[in-house]
């Protein structure tokens, strides 16, 4: 109970109905450790000014804090600083790509490939671009187990495909996608490869030199950082060739009445006053993660993940989705027989157990699996086997509440 990691999270110390809070919705957003809250507080109490705008000392501290955060993210990803664009969240990062890369590189008849596992944020922007330019949107389907078969990759990613966008980890099934194969195949046919790392960044070490992708997006708030800060990483040549997305202050080189020229990377893509406090929080979150180390994180999370899967698998009247095979992280999806997922979530909540119910912003996947909604328990590094026990205990009650015998 006095887990040294969990104790660093103020929010997780609270009780609800007299019971310790069991937060199993980190796939939606994580909680923040004290170190992150303190870093943001320090910024606002000591260093706050508009980055890049003030030539006075306070302004320089603000700029240093903001650009220092970028350097931190760059080293975290093993990337160059200029390739790191700060956005609001993964959704904005992906929209930036769709508008700026997509609208300017795709044309009628081109093909875009996404997987059926995608979160709406890595799907609708591509639907929109395809509609706008007349390109075709093609899906990599999974089996009922949630796994994309090799043949599917071979068959769908072919000549004429200009862009492949795929999630690194499914936010519903927790399965790690075969990124290596997909990226290799995408590059073989000359397509650009976009990786949605919203669900992988908190769990797996990301190295853009090794991942062999061209763009990558994630959200700070799923990575122990504050809300309102996200990242788009892209290969320099590609980013340089792209037109800006948002325009306005700070992203310009010079402005005349009828036209303007753009600042070099990364400013070109950062219009207006940026969320420096959020960036500082993200840098602190990364330092916090690095102080634990991904090796420890993976070991700890794997243990809890396996325990979670096995405990639920043992229970009667519970259906698990996906497969226990292969590499997983974060999420486990399930349903309780005869009980609507929203009722499950409400009933668990009475025991202070937080899980999410619904389509998890992945409606096409749920439709593909023959579902309308399901429950999802998702974990982060602060979760423990005790949290899983609390979930399992509470799950025992669900059917009884609804008048079933067992």
């Amino acid at each position, binding site marked *: 109970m006095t887990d040294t990691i969990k104790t660093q999270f103020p929010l997780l110390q609270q009780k609800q109905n007299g019971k310790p809070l069991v937060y199993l919705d980190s796939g939606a957003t994580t909680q923040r450790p004290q170190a992150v809250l303190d870093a943001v507080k320090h910024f606002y109490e000591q260093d706050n000014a508009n980055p890049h705008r003030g030539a006075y000392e306070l302004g320089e501290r603000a700029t240093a804090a903001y650009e220092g955060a970028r350097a931190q993210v760059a080293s975290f990803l093993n990337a160059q600083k200029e390739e790191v664009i700060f956005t609001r969240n993964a959704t904005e990062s992906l929209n930036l790509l769709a508008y700026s890369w997509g609208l300017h590189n795709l044309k009628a008849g081109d093909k875009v490939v996404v997987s059926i596992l995608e979160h709406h944020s890595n799907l609708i922007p591509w639907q929109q671009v395809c509609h706008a330019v007349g390109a075709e949107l093609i899906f990599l389907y999974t089996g009922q187990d949630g796994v994309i078969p090799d043949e599917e990759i071979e068959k769908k990613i072919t000549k004429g495909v200009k862009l492949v966008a795929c999630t690194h980890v499914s936010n519903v099934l927790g399965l790690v996608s075969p990124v290596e194969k997909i990226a290799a195949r995408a590059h073989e046919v000359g397509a650009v490869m976009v990786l949605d790392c919203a669900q992988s960044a908190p769990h797996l070490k990301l190295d853009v030199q090794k991942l062999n992708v061209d763009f990558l997006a994630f959200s700070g708030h799923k990575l122990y950082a504050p809300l309102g800060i996200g990242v788009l990483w892209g290969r320099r040549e590609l980013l340089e060739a792209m037109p800006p997305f948002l325009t306005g202050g700070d992203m310009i080189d010079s402005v005349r009445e009828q036209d303007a020229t753009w600042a070099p990377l990364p400013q070109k893509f950062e219009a207006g006053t940026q969320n420096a406090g959020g960036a500082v929080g993200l840098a602190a979150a990364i330092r916090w993660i690095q102080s634990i180390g991904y090796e420890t994180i993976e070991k700890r999370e794997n243990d809890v993940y396996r325990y979670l899967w096995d405990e639920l698998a043992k229970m009667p009247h519970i259906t698990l989705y996906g497969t226990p095979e292969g590499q997983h992280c974060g999420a486990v999806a399930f349903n309780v027989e005869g009980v*609507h*997922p*929203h*009722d499950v979530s*409400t*009933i668990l909540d009475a025991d202070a157990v937080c899980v999410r119910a619904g389509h998890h912003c992945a409606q096409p996947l749920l439709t593909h699996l023959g579902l*309308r909604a399901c429950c999802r328990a998702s974990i982060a590094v602060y979760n423990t086997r005790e949290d899983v026990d609390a979930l399992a205990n509470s799950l025992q009650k669900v059917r009884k*509440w*609804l*008048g079933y015998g067992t």
Partner: protein
Amino acid sequence: MELEQIYTQIITENSRSKEHKYAVKDATQVVEGVNPSCGDEISLQLRVKDGMIEDAAFLGDGCAISQASANIMIDLIKGKSVKEAEHLSNLFLGMIKGEVTDDGQLDELEDAQAFKDISHMPARVKCAVLGWHTLQDAVTKAEKATS
């Protein structure tokens, strides 16, 4: 009322009842409602004649709260006038919003009063009102059809 009690009362009496789950013959109004937070859908069917609801039923799946709420609603409105159904739906939605709190007034809602405490669970309010909102649409259509 405790959450567990609401659930127990609701389901034992209503949520798995099939009594009002059928397609109404010669329905004059068939109206679809959807709960955007979970995608649950309901199809409300009425046969209205001379301003009276001769028959009412619903189709569709959903959570216990939405199903029970719809079931109780049908119980209440079947055989009543369209005007009366409109009044009851206003009363129900007023209760949920916390605007109508007088127990005397709420008595008219009979079993549907069980949902009073749902206003403490904002995420589930949409489930409780799905059927009733759909009823309001249906009533509007019924009134238009006769005017």
